[in-house]
């Protein structure tokens, strides 16, 4: 799905823990999510902190939309 959305000219970040699968298929921007089971979550954190965690992760994923990847390569980032 990601590649079709890219093909239409809309920038997209795919957020997944399984970045290796994504890398094989080749979308240009991959952000590694926490876990397959809770991509944008961290259940080990207390509720209030989890929203802060999620906000931080989403911000970093969004920032990737402005990056131009090097020729032929995908950008893969993890939450910092």
């Amino acid at each position, binding site marked *: *799905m*990601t590649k079709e*959305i890219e093909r239409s*000219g809309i920038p997209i*970040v795919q957020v997944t823990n399984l970045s290796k699968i994504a890398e094989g298929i080749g979308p240009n921007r991959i952000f590694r999510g926490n876990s397959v089971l809770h991509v*944008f979550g961290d259940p080990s954190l207390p509720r209030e902190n989890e929203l802060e965690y999620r906000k931080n992760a*989403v911000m970093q994923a969004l920032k990737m939309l402005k990056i131009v990847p090097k020729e032929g390569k995908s950008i893969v980032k993890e939450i910092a």
Partner: protein
Amino acid sequence: MVKKYRVVHYINQFYGGYGGEDTAGMAMLVKEKPVGPGLELEKMFDGKAEIVATIICGDNKIAENLETMVPKVVETVKKYNPDLFIGGPGFNAGRYGMACGATTAAVAETLKIPAVTALFAENPGTDIYKDSCYILETENNARNMKEVLKRLVTFSLRLVSGEPIGDGKKEGYHGSGPAVEIDYSVPAPKRALKMLLAKYYNKPFRTEVVMPNHEKIPTPVLDKPLSEAKIALVTDGGLVPKGNPDNMVVTNSTCFKSYSIKGKDRLKPEDYEVRHQGYNNAYVLEDPNRLVPVDAMRVLVKEGFIGSLFDSYFTTAGVMTGMDKCKSFGEGIAKILKGNGIDAVILTST
């Protein structure tokens, strides 16, 4: 005397010398000799092969009547009992590309003889037929015709001699090429050990599943500041409203859906469920925002980090679903996004 391979070549009205658009509706005809690019092709075979027949057809005639015309082409090819079929090359010509792809695939599948064509990546024929037959990569114009013909010749000779062909990335063809014929009457472990021992002893073997050569799409970049951008959320984790009003399936998805998040500050667990069989959805059921991060996005809008959040999210179950379906979902979603002026997307995958 070494046997010459018999080749049937397919070309359109233009390469056949009949004209351009004006003759695009011309009926199929056969000349029992090489025509147009076929002349160069035969020369390059250097005595190893001869073009015993060239099938010429108008692009409109065939592209508008694939169901009737393609079988006709196959019938005609069969009559000549060839060792090899070559289509085009078609480069970026859309209708010609459909014709090349469709005929090459049909010949490969029906007559089970070596068949190959050559098209540009964005030719619609490439997309549709790249997993049904060999479509060699070309540029988007016919400038390097000679180079492409040379590659067709080299590849063809390997095909007819039974040489094992590797994956698309290595060999320069799109997708995964023709589907491998599998004999299910031989149990898998017997086939596996045969393959393993061949590989171990450096003998030729053929994999039953070819890794697909996925095309690289040029990267769109967000051309406005994030603070002005309208973002949409998409997921393949199968999140749907409680009660599953559209009967979304848990595997082998047939469609995607969009659901409104208008006025919602966050997704409440009591309002949602997961229709996706491939992962333990307990954490997402506890807090759906872990999959579709509406709460975080709303905060970011409030803080001015992004312009706005689209008031629907898109969902499907991305498990055990064919690539072709996934592609059509992507196309469908992209269309809606463009229609609503969406600037960028976050897609969460499980």
